[in-house]
């Protein structure tokens, strides 16, 4: 994403200092940790990457790899550019065995993975008939609703028998099922807003609805680490997009002030609408949006706020109602709620929620409601069941237990990881737990080591993160017990020592870390 942020501002546009005060909220955790990496690590990690590219280049020039080539297209301009190819073949290929593992069971607390071997240095893989069972810290299963038995599965099977598994029509044609109506009401009730509209895919919810709300005379202030779908949506909307530093409310306010004064770039007319687009929990950083501060800015400058709660809905707050619940803000303060059902609810699809007229407008103007197929009935039913459980509508403590278990797991695991001397990014309450390993080669090595200990984790590197900030991402789940976490931590300790991951330069706390009840009264 092209950033047009200018670093120097005229004096009169600078802040009057109102946002520089620390907020006084006590009921949530403001402790975001972002330990700076040492110069030596930065240098070595970058060098390592460039070295790999250099080897790749030499390799590319001397040996022609046995890759597929385009047939029957002689004399056409090449389809891909060379740098991409070199990156894929000589850098990405080296860690390819850590990705795309083949799952053959429920992605619950344990996950069954088909074994595979490569005989040619990761150019190709051969699937074996054997399976291994891993402890699952890789799937987005925050509340543990990914199950093949229990109420979710039972209700869903009933729906498959009565309503089939597909509708094959869009919402504006004959694609509205009574389950959609029910789910929309339930989602609105869950979030405490007027109304909601649901779509069949979370990614498409952003891509196909942002263009309906924004147009070329709008300004969008988008967080640096927003998800690809948000960026794609803003791009489709033709609105002017300006990137603010990750979670930096001071920078955000400066940009808003500056742009209200300057107006639209060519015509100099005032902006018609200004939007702040941010996420609840950032999937690569594990940080939580500074919502109270952003709401204050939003109110002060009369701009609109769009929050993508893909990861935070269900996973944050004492009632699992997302970032709003976590900070105890009023639902009226966010204009557009967006979220997905993939992660916490163990299903698929996404929603947009907000005021009645916004949702009605989207019913009429959203690209998805007009052209894309509506949500499949079994998918809708799974969400209805899991959401009802969370809201306690099934008259059991099941939902509450799951929410508490997740919160406790997150605090415990994060503190333990830090005690091992690892650099852990993000908020202490965020279920996305990135552990920094910096080197792209260490990403591969660490994931392989974890797999040897039968633990499934995700390794992320360039291009999803900056060049020299490869990381391992744990996704916490309520399905995991304390004993299982201890097992993981024991393995992590061995791996940290073996691969050399204790990068933290902070003093390590020697107190005993207990498994505490976060929401204990």
């Amino acid at each position: 994403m092209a950033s047009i942020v200018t670093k120097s501002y005229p004096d009169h546009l600078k802040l009057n200092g109102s946002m520089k005060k620390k907020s006084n909220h006590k009921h949530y955790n403001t402790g975001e940790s972002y330990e700076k990496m040492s110069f030596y690590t930065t240098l070595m990690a970058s060098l390592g990457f460039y070295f790999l590219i250099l080897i790749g280049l030499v390799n590319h020039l001397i040996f022609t790899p046995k890759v597929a080539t385009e047939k029957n297209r002689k004399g056409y301009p090449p389809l891909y550019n060379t740098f991409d190819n070199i990156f894929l073949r000589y850098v990405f290929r080296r860690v390819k065995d850590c990705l795309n593992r083949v799952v053959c069971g429920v992605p619950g607390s344990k996950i069954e993975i088909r074994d595979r071997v490569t005989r040619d240095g990761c150019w190709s893989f051969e699937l074996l008939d054997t399976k291994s069972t891993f402890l699952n810290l890789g799937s987005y299963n925050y509340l543990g609703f990914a199950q093949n038995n229990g109420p979710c599965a039972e209700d869903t099977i009933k729906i498959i028998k009565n309503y089939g598994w597909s509708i094959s029509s869009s919402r504006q044609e004959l694609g509205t099922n009574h389950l959609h109506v029910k789910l929309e009401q339930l989602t609105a009730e869950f979030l405490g807003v007027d109304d909601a509209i649901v779509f069949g895919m979370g990614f498409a919810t952003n891509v196909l609805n942002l263009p309906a709300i924004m147009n070329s005379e709008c300004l969008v202030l988008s967080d640096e680490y927003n998800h690809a779908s948000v960026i794609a949506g803003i791009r489709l909307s033709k609105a002017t997009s300006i990137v603010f530093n990750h979670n930096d409310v001071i920078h955000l306010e400066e940009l808003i002030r500056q742009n209200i004064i300057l107006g639209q770039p060519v015509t100099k007319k005032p902006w018609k609408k200004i939007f702040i687009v941010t996420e609840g929990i950032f999937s690569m950083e594990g940080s939580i949006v500074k919502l109270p501060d952003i709401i204050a800015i939003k109110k002060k400058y009369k701009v609109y706020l769009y929050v993508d709660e893909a990861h935070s809905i269900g996973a944050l707050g004492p009632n699992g109602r997302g970032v709003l619940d976590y900070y105890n803000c009023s639902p009226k303060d966010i204009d557009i709620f967006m979220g997905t059902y993939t992660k916490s609810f163990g299903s698929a699809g996404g929603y947009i929620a907000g005021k009645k007229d916004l949702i009605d407008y989207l019913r009429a103007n959203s690209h998805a409601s007009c052209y894309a197929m509506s949500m499949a009935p079994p998918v809708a039913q799974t969400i209805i069941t899991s959401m009802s459980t969370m809201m306690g509508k099934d008259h059991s403590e099941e939902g509450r237990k799951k929410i508490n278990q997740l919160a406790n797991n997150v605090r415990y695991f994060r503190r333990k990881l830090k005690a091992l001397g690892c650099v852990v990014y993000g908020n202490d309450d965020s279920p996305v737990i990135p552990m920094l390993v910096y080197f792209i080669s260490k990403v591969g090595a660490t994931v392989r080591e974890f797999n040897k200990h039968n633990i499934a984790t995700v390794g992320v590197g360039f291009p999803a993160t900056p060049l020299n900030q490869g990381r391992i991402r744990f996704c916490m789940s309520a399905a995991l017990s304390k004993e299982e976490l201890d097992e993981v931590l024991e393995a992590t300790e061995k791996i940290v020592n073996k691969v050399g991951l204790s990068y933290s330069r902070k003093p390590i706390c020697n107190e005993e870390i207990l498994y505490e009840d976060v929401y204990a009264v």
Partner: protein
Amino acid sequence: MQASVEDPVAVTTTAATSSVAHDMYSPINTLFGQVQFNHIYVEGSILLILLWILFKKTASTANSKKTKPPETVDVDEQIRLWTPQPMIDSYNLDELPMKNYVVDSKVYDHVTINGQSCINFATHNYYNFINDKNIENSVVDAVHKYGIGSCGPRAFYGTFDIHIELEEKLAQFMGMEEAVIYSYGFSTVTSAIQAYVKSKDIVYADEEVNFAIQKGLQSSKAEVVYFKHNCPDDLERLITQHDAVKKRMKRKSFLIVEGIYMKTGNICKLRELIDIRIKHKIRIFIDESISFGVLGKNGRGVTEYFNIPKDEVDLIIGSLETSLSSVGGFSVGSTFVVEHQRLSGLGYCFSASLPPLHSVAAIKALEQIDKHPELLVKLQERSINLHQSISQSQLIEHFYLGSDQISPLKHLYLRDNFPSYLEEQNLLKNIVDYCISNGVALTVAAYLNKHEYKQPKPSIRLLVSININDENIESLINVLSQAVILVMKKTTIQ
């Protein structure tokens, strides 16, 4: 080393170097010797003046930038005075023709809408797979085995063994090297286009391509040239117009068409398009969302229908939501082309993968089509049958059919001309309302009129399924004729 001036060798060397230096500069001297010096003065002064003008301009703009917001106006006041427009534009829900209908049953050849049982001519349900007990059992088994959601993108523990099986089966079915599946039909086309088409490139597309293709092209930021619907001659003309630029810039060019056009129901003229493609060295992508599993002897789509060798087509994009009655989409082609999407297809990389149960449903449906080519013959028969029955009925006084006979997707357009899109749509809505209350489910084709490249003519989209018999077609025609007479009467009275 000590070299003294008296050293004869050293003296000769310095003399030699100075003479060499003299020789080196001599061409310049000769050059400048011939130039009249007043020329240099004149040109030099012109250069100076130009530079002065240039710098003066930038200096003045820099100054003006600094002084632009007048210091007398309070910045805070100006910010306070800025008022945004309302978040959403005006809208009218009543313009949605189908907004009151809620389906309350399985959607196959019969469907219950608002409590009324109807024969279904409104949804993509060519083979009635939703009512197939064997597929249903496999889907239920999939829930028992995998649960419902996939809980992750493909790279991060979201690749299930049945995804791989489906990809292999699709590639095998289409006789191509590799396939990738997406979790949503709409995002498939958009992502696939974005993965290859970059801002430098040029794309030729039919003017009636569906909305997903239009959005894919828009987000790729490439130059898009739309040619007349199903008119290869117009394409040829446009290509020659743009060819000179293309060669100079060495940019990639693409041709994007649909197998059966969603917006018109016509089959593309692939043979002519392929000839043009070869002649002008253009790569071709075909969206077979409708034609996959429908056209050709074995359902391989439009390439089989025209008997085109597979390597003449670069990429085929299809949907699992139409003929296979599941959810999702796929694209298939050579490994060289398709593999790229696994890292560059946005909807593939950044979205959770297809729910396993839908993957299973698609595998089973594909097996059915593969094993029973007679299904295709039956569907084509039914499509032709419906087309001819309507064409020969009294309906043709008020309507015309805009689609190919063989296509299971047909558009029924009103013959009369109307002053506005809304008025025409409203009339169709009344007709559809009447039909649904009399047991025939139809739908007005939904469009975001403002955002479409070419404004479509409002229509009723008819979709054929193999279980539609002559009796059903007769009742469709009867109900439609009654509806037209009633609705037309009403409007003339008004």
